[in-house]
Protein backbone atom coordinates (compact mmCIF):
# COMPACT_ATOMS: atom_id res chain seq x y z
CA UNK A 1 0.00 0.00 0.00
CA UNK A 2 1.37 3.38 -0.96
CA UNK A 3 1.99 6.07 1.61
CA UNK A 4 -0.73 8.13 -0.03
CA UNK A 5 -3.33 5.35 0.18
CA UNK A 6 -2.38 4.75 3.80
CA UNK A 7 -2.89 8.42 4.54
CA UNK A 8 -6.29 8.40 2.85
CA UNK A 9 -7.37 5.36 4.87
CA UNK A 10 -6.39 7.19 8.04
CA UNK A 11 -8.31 10.28 7.02
CA UNK A 12 -11.31 8.11 6.12
CA UNK A 13 -11.18 6.43 9.50
CA UNK A 14 -11.12 9.73 11.39
CA UNK A 15 -13.89 11.24 9.30
CA UNK A 16 -16.08 8.14 9.74
CA UNK A 17 -15.26 8.23 13.46
CA UNK A 18 -16.53 11.81 13.67
CA UNK A 19 -19.70 10.85 11.85
CA UNK A 20 -20.13 7.74 14.04
CA UNK A 21 -19.81 9.90 17.13
CA UNK A 22 -22.76 12.00 16.03
CA UNK A 23 -24.67 9.00 14.65
CA UNK A 24 -24.39 7.06 17.91
CA UNK A 25 -25.89 10.02 19.77
CA UNK A 26 -28.80 10.22 17.33
CA UNK A 27 -29.22 6.46 17.59
CA UNK A 28 -29.28 6.52 21.41
CA UNK A 29 -31.76 9.37 21.57
CA UNK A 30 -33.99 7.57 19.06
CA UNK A 31 -33.83 4.40 21.14
CA UNK A 32 -34.77 6.30 24.30
CA UNK A 33 -37.67 7.97 22.59
CA UNK A 34 -38.77 4.76 20.87
CA UNK A 35 -38.92 2.58 23.99
CA UNK A 36 -41.13 4.96 25.91
CA UNK A 37 -44.44 3.22 26.31
CA UNK A 38 -43.08 -0.09 24.99
CA UNK A 39 -41.34 -1.12 21.81
CA UNK A 40 -43.42 -2.61 19.02
CA UNK A 41 -42.62 -3.55 15.44
CA UNK A 42 -45.57 -1.54 14.17
CA UNK A 43 -44.25 1.55 15.90
CA UNK A 44 -40.77 1.12 14.42
CA UNK A 45 -42.13 0.49 10.94
CA UNK A 46 -44.44 3.48 11.23
CA UNK A 47 -41.37 5.63 11.73
CA UNK A 48 -39.09 4.09 9.12
CA UNK A 49 -41.32 2.95 6.26
CA UNK A 50 -40.93 5.30 3.35
CA UNK A 51 -38.91 7.68 5.49
CA UNK A 52 -36.10 8.51 3.10
CA UNK A 53 -34.22 10.55 5.67
CA UNK A 54 -34.15 7.73 8.17
CA UNK A 55 -33.02 5.34 5.47
CA UNK A 56 -30.25 7.69 4.38
CA UNK A 57 -29.16 8.08 7.99
CA UNK A 58 -29.05 4.34 8.72
CA UNK A 59 -27.37 3.56 5.38
CA UNK A 60 -24.67 6.17 6.05
CA UNK A 61 -24.32 4.84 9.62
CA UNK A 62 -23.81 1.29 8.31
CA UNK A 63 -21.36 2.37 5.62
CA UNK A 64 -19.33 4.45 8.05
CA UNK A 65 -19.24 1.67 10.66
CA UNK A 66 -18.26 -0.96 8.06
CA UNK A 67 -15.41 1.10 6.65
CA UNK A 68 -14.29 2.44 10.01
CA UNK A 69 -14.19 -1.01 11.58
CA UNK A 70 -12.41 -2.65 8.65
CA UNK A 71 -9.73 0.06 8.52
CA UNK A 72 -9.17 -0.19 12.28
CA UNK A 73 -9.04 -3.99 12.29
CA UNK A 74 -6.65 -3.88 9.34
CA UNK A 75 -4.25 -1.75 11.42
CA UNK A 76 -4.43 -4.14 14.33
CA UNK A 77 -3.94 -7.20 12.11
CA UNK A 78 -0.91 -5.58 10.49
CA UNK A 79 0.69 -4.93 13.84
CA UNK A 80 -0.25 -8.00 15.81
CA UNK A 81 -0.43 -10.70 13.16
CA UNK A 82 1.82 -9.23 10.48
CA UNK A 83 -1.02 -9.43 7.95
CA UNK A 84 0.36 -6.96 5.43
CA UNK A 85 0.11 -6.62 1.69
CA UNK A 86 -2.25 -6.33 -1.23
CA UNK A 87 -4.17 -9.56 -0.62
CA UNK A 88 -5.01 -8.61 2.94
CA UNK A 89 -5.96 -5.08 1.90
CA UNK A 90 -8.49 -6.41 -0.59
CA UNK A 91 -9.80 -8.86 2.01
CA UNK A 92 -10.35 -5.99 4.46
CA UNK A 93 -12.04 -3.93 1.79
CA UNK A 94 -14.35 -6.90 1.20
CA UNK A 95 -15.04 -7.32 4.93
CA UNK A 96 -15.78 -3.61 5.27
CA UNK A 97 -18.16 -3.59 2.32
CA UNK A 98 -19.91 -6.81 3.36
CA UNK A 99 -20.49 -5.62 6.95
CA UNK A 100 -21.70 -2.29 5.62
CA UNK A 101 -24.07 -4.04 3.22
CA UNK A 102 -25.60 -6.09 6.04
CA UNK A 103 -26.48 -2.83 7.73
CA UNK A 104 -27.73 -1.18 4.55
CA UNK A 105 -29.90 -4.22 3.77
CA UNK A 106 -31.45 -4.06 7.24
CA UNK A 107 -32.17 -0.35 6.79
CA UNK A 108 -33.61 -1.07 3.36
CA UNK A 109 -35.88 -3.69 4.87
CA UNK A 110 -37.29 -1.14 7.31
CA UNK A 111 -37.69 1.39 4.52
CA UNK A 112 -39.62 -0.67 1.96
CA UNK A 113 -41.36 -3.46 3.88
Amino acid at each position, binding site marked *: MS*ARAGRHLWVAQRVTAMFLGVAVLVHLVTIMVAVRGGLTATEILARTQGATLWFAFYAAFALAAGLHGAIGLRNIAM*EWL*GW*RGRGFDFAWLGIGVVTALFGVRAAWGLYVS
Partner: protein
Amino acid sequence: METVPKGENAQTSLKVRVWRGDAAGGEFREYAVPARENQTVLDVVTQIQREIEPDLAYRFACRVGMCGSCAMEVNGRARWTCRTHVKRVAAPGEALEIRPLANLPVIRDLATDMAPFFDKWARAGGTFQPKDAPDGAVPAEFSVVPPESKQRREADAGIECIGCGVCYASCDIVAWNPDYLGPAAMNRAWTLVNDVRDGARRERLEAVSGDAGCHSCHSTQSCTERCPKNLDPSSAIAGLKRTLFWDSLWGRLR
Protein backbone atom coordinates in the same frame (compact mmCIF):
# COMPACT_ATOMS: atom_id res chain seq x y z
CA MET B 1 35.16 5.87 64.02
CA GLU B 2 35.14 3.69 60.96
CA THR B 3 36.64 5.26 57.91
CA VAL B 4 35.56 4.53 54.41
CA PRO B 5 38.06 5.05 51.57
CA LYS B 6 37.34 8.28 49.81
CA GLY B 7 34.96 8.01 46.87
CA GLU B 8 34.59 4.31 47.22
CA ASN B 9 33.22 1.76 49.60
CA ALA B 10 35.70 -1.07 49.31
CA GLN B 11 33.45 -3.58 51.05
CA THR B 12 30.63 -3.42 48.56
CA SER B 13 30.71 -4.46 44.99
CA LEU B 14 28.17 -3.94 42.28
CA LYS B 15 26.87 -6.96 40.40
CA VAL B 16 26.51 -6.35 36.70
CA ARG B 17 24.94 -8.65 34.14
CA VAL B 18 26.17 -7.77 30.67
CA TRP B 19 24.86 -9.25 27.45
CA ARG B 20 27.70 -10.71 25.40
CA GLY B 21 27.25 -11.95 21.88
CA ASP B 22 26.66 -10.95 18.29
CA ALA B 23 24.02 -11.09 15.55
CA ALA B 24 23.87 -14.88 15.88
CA GLY B 25 22.91 -14.70 19.56
CA GLY B 26 24.43 -14.43 22.97
CA GLU B 27 23.91 -14.57 26.71
CA PHE B 28 24.33 -12.59 29.90
CA ARG B 29 27.58 -12.81 31.83
CA GLU B 30 28.04 -11.63 35.36
CA TYR B 31 30.72 -9.26 36.56
CA ALA B 32 31.48 -7.45 39.79
CA VAL B 33 32.91 -3.97 39.97
CA PRO B 34 33.51 -1.75 42.99
CA ALA B 35 30.36 0.11 43.97
CA ARG B 36 31.09 3.82 44.15
CA GLU B 37 29.09 6.65 45.55
CA ASN B 38 29.00 8.40 42.20
CA GLN B 39 29.20 6.36 39.04
CA THR B 40 27.35 6.28 35.80
CA VAL B 41 26.32 3.17 33.93
CA LEU B 42 28.90 4.09 31.28
CA ASP B 43 31.59 4.25 34.00
CA VAL B 44 30.63 0.71 34.98
CA VAL B 45 30.84 -0.60 31.42
CA THR B 46 34.18 1.13 30.95
CA GLN B 47 35.46 -0.35 34.19
CA ILE B 48 34.51 -3.83 33.04
CA GLN B 49 36.21 -3.33 29.71
CA ARG B 50 39.40 -1.88 31.17
CA GLU B 51 39.79 -4.24 34.12
CA ILE B 52 38.03 -7.49 33.26
CA GLU B 53 37.00 -7.98 29.61
CA PRO B 54 39.23 -6.07 27.18
CA ASP B 55 37.20 -7.35 24.22
CA LEU B 56 33.84 -6.01 25.46
CA ALA B 57 32.34 -3.99 22.61
CA TYR B 58 30.39 -0.82 23.36
CA ARG B 59 30.15 2.72 22.03
CA PHE B 60 30.54 6.19 23.48
CA ALA B 61 32.20 9.47 22.62
CA CYS B 62 31.35 12.63 24.50
CA ARG B 63 30.43 11.28 27.96
CA VAL B 64 28.39 14.42 28.60
CA GLY B 65 25.09 13.72 26.86
CA MET B 66 25.78 15.40 23.54
CA CYS B 67 26.82 12.84 20.96
CA GLY B 68 24.05 10.28 21.40
CA SER B 69 26.25 7.23 20.94
CA CYS B 70 26.13 5.56 24.35
CA ALA B 71 22.51 4.38 24.61
CA MET B 72 21.86 0.86 25.95
CA GLU B 73 19.08 -1.02 27.69
CA VAL B 74 19.68 -0.72 31.43
CA ASN B 75 17.47 -2.77 33.73
CA GLY B 76 14.89 -3.11 31.02
CA ARG B 77 14.80 0.44 29.69
CA ALA B 78 16.67 2.29 27.00
CA ARG B 79 18.79 5.07 28.48
CA TRP B 80 21.78 7.23 27.72
CA THR B 81 24.38 5.52 29.87
CA CYS B 82 26.79 8.45 30.25
CA ARG B 83 24.20 10.55 32.08
CA THR B 84 22.51 7.74 33.99
CA HIS B 85 23.74 7.33 37.54
CA VAL B 86 23.73 3.77 38.82
CA LYS B 87 21.96 4.78 42.01
CA ARG B 88 19.09 6.16 39.94
CA VAL B 89 18.36 2.83 38.27
CA ALA B 90 19.40 0.26 40.87
CA ALA B 91 18.65 0.30 44.58
CA PRO B 92 21.61 -0.39 46.91
CA GLY B 93 22.53 -4.05 46.58
CA GLU B 94 20.52 -4.47 43.37
CA ALA B 95 22.26 -5.74 40.23
CA LEU B 96 22.57 -3.89 36.95
CA GLU B 97 21.50 -5.59 33.75
CA ILE B 98 22.85 -4.09 30.56
CA ARG B 99 21.79 -5.11 27.06
CA PRO B 100 22.28 -3.59 23.62
CA LEU B 101 19.63 -1.15 22.45
CA ALA B 102 16.40 -2.87 21.34
CA ASN B 103 14.90 -2.73 17.83
CA LEU B 104 18.31 -2.53 16.15
CA PRO B 105 20.65 -5.24 14.82
CA VAL B 106 23.42 -6.14 17.23
CA ILE B 107 26.98 -5.87 15.95
CA ARG B 108 28.66 -7.24 19.03
CA ASP B 109 27.98 -7.12 22.78
CA LEU B 110 26.56 -3.67 23.60
CA ALA B 111 27.18 -2.10 20.19
CA THR B 112 24.20 -1.98 17.83
CA ASP B 113 24.12 -1.12 14.16
CA MET B 114 22.53 2.34 13.96
CA ALA B 115 22.29 2.29 10.16
CA PRO B 116 18.55 1.45 9.97
CA PHE B 117 17.86 4.28 12.41
CA PHE B 118 19.71 6.89 10.36
CA ASP B 119 18.49 5.48 7.03
CA LYS B 120 15.00 6.24 8.27
CA TRP B 121 15.96 9.82 9.10
CA ALA B 122 16.93 10.15 5.46
CA ARG B 123 13.74 8.42 4.28
CA ALA B 124 11.62 10.77 6.40
CA GLY B 125 13.17 13.74 4.59
CA GLY B 126 15.49 14.69 7.43
CA THR B 127 17.67 16.97 5.30
CA PHE B 128 17.03 20.69 5.13
CA GLN B 129 16.17 21.78 1.54
CA PRO B 130 16.74 25.53 1.24
CA LYS B 131 13.83 27.16 -0.53
CA ASP B 132 15.76 29.98 -2.19
CA ALA B 133 18.79 27.93 -3.14
CA PRO B 134 17.74 24.73 -4.92
CA ASP B 135 21.27 23.75 -5.83
CA GLY B 136 22.50 24.09 -2.30
CA ALA B 137 23.90 27.55 -3.03
CA VAL B 138 23.93 30.07 -0.22
CA PRO B 139 20.92 32.38 -0.56
CA ALA B 140 21.71 36.04 -1.11
CA GLU B 141 19.61 37.15 1.86
CA PHE B 142 19.25 35.67 5.29
CA SER B 143 15.73 34.58 6.11
CA VAL B 144 14.05 36.39 8.94
CA VAL B 145 12.47 33.87 11.32
CA PRO B 146 10.86 35.58 14.30
CA PRO B 147 11.80 33.52 17.37
CA GLU B 148 8.31 33.98 18.83
CA SER B 149 6.44 32.77 15.74
CA LYS B 150 4.36 29.64 16.27
CA GLN B 151 6.28 27.65 13.67
CA ARG B 152 9.65 28.61 15.07
CA ARG B 153 8.54 27.50 18.51
CA GLU B 154 7.27 24.17 17.13
CA ALA B 155 10.64 23.64 15.45
CA ASP B 156 12.56 24.69 18.57
CA ALA B 157 10.71 22.13 20.66
CA GLY B 158 12.25 19.26 18.73
CA ILE B 159 15.54 20.63 17.54
CA GLU B 160 17.78 19.38 20.36
CA CYS B 161 17.62 15.70 19.32
CA ILE B 162 21.01 14.02 19.68
CA GLY B 163 20.06 10.94 17.65
CA CYS B 164 20.63 8.54 20.53
CA GLY B 165 17.95 6.05 19.45
CA VAL B 166 16.43 5.73 22.94
CA CYS B 167 12.96 6.60 21.61
CA TYR B 168 13.38 4.22 18.68
CA ALA B 169 14.29 1.37 21.02
CA SER B 170 11.28 2.17 23.24
CA CYS B 171 8.62 2.19 20.52
CA ASP B 172 6.39 -0.87 20.14
CA ILE B 173 5.44 0.04 16.60
CA VAL B 174 9.09 -0.15 15.53
CA ALA B 175 9.20 -3.62 17.04
CA TRP B 176 6.02 -4.65 15.19
CA ASN B 177 6.71 -3.05 11.84
CA PRO B 178 10.33 -3.01 10.67
CA ASP B 179 9.48 -0.34 8.09
CA TYR B 180 8.07 2.13 10.64
CA LEU B 181 10.11 5.32 10.50
CA GLY B 182 10.07 5.77 14.26
CA PRO B 183 9.82 8.74 16.59
CA ALA B 184 13.20 10.42 16.08
CA ALA B 185 12.99 10.55 12.27
CA MET B 186 9.48 12.00 12.39
CA ASN B 187 10.39 14.41 15.17
CA ARG B 188 13.12 15.67 12.84
CA ALA B 189 10.68 15.86 9.92
CA TRP B 190 8.28 17.94 12.03
CA THR B 191 11.01 20.48 12.86
CA LEU B 192 11.65 20.87 9.12
CA VAL B 193 7.94 21.07 8.24
CA ASN B 194 7.89 24.06 10.58
CA ASP B 195 11.02 25.61 9.09
CA VAL B 196 9.77 28.45 6.92
CA ARG B 197 13.05 28.45 4.99
CA ASP B 198 12.55 24.87 3.85
CA GLY B 199 11.22 24.14 0.37
CA ALA B 200 10.49 20.42 0.58
CA ARG B 201 7.41 20.48 2.79
CA ARG B 202 5.24 18.52 0.36
CA GLU B 203 7.72 15.73 -0.32
CA ARG B 204 8.47 15.44 3.36
CA LEU B 205 4.81 15.20 4.32
CA GLU B 206 4.34 12.48 1.68
CA ALA B 207 7.38 10.67 3.04
CA VAL B 208 6.03 10.50 6.58
CA SER B 209 2.54 9.35 5.49
CA GLY B 210 0.95 5.97 5.69
CA ASP B 211 1.57 2.66 7.40
CA ALA B 212 5.33 3.15 7.72
CA GLY B 213 4.86 6.72 8.87
CA CYS B 214 2.98 8.86 11.32
CA HIS B 215 -0.36 7.14 10.69
CA SER B 216 0.80 4.01 12.49
CA CYS B 217 1.72 5.86 15.69
CA HIS B 218 -0.68 5.22 18.58
CA SER B 219 0.44 8.20 20.66
CA THR B 220 1.43 5.89 23.49
CA GLN B 221 4.25 8.31 24.32
CA SER B 222 6.95 5.85 25.34
CA CYS B 223 9.24 7.91 23.14
CA THR B 224 8.34 11.10 24.95
CA GLU B 225 8.67 9.52 28.36
CA ARG B 226 12.09 8.00 27.66
CA CYS B 227 13.75 10.74 25.61
CA PRO B 228 16.73 11.84 27.69
CA LYS B 229 16.58 15.31 26.16
CA ASN B 230 12.97 15.68 27.28
CA LEU B 231 11.77 16.09 23.72
CA ASP B 232 8.24 15.14 22.74
CA PRO B 233 8.33 13.10 19.51
CA SER B 234 4.80 11.88 20.19
CA SER B 235 3.43 15.42 19.91
CA ALA B 236 5.58 16.06 16.86
CA ILE B 237 3.99 13.01 15.19
CA ALA B 238 0.54 14.22 16.23
CA GLY B 239 1.43 17.52 14.54
CA LEU B 240 2.30 15.67 11.35
CA LYS B 241 -1.00 13.77 11.48
CA ARG B 242 -2.94 16.96 12.04
CA THR B 243 -1.19 18.73 9.18
CA LEU B 244 -1.70 15.76 6.87
CA PHE B 245 -5.35 15.48 7.85
CA TRP B 246 -6.19 19.04 6.87
CA ASP B 247 -3.90 19.03 3.84
CA SER B 248 -5.66 15.86 2.62
CA LEU B 249 -9.16 17.16 3.28
CA TRP B 250 -8.55 20.51 1.57
CA GLY B 251 -6.71 18.88 -1.29
CA ARG B 252 -3.39 20.57 -0.61
CA LEU B 253 -1.99 17.05 -0.81
CA ARG B 254 -3.65 14.62 -3.16
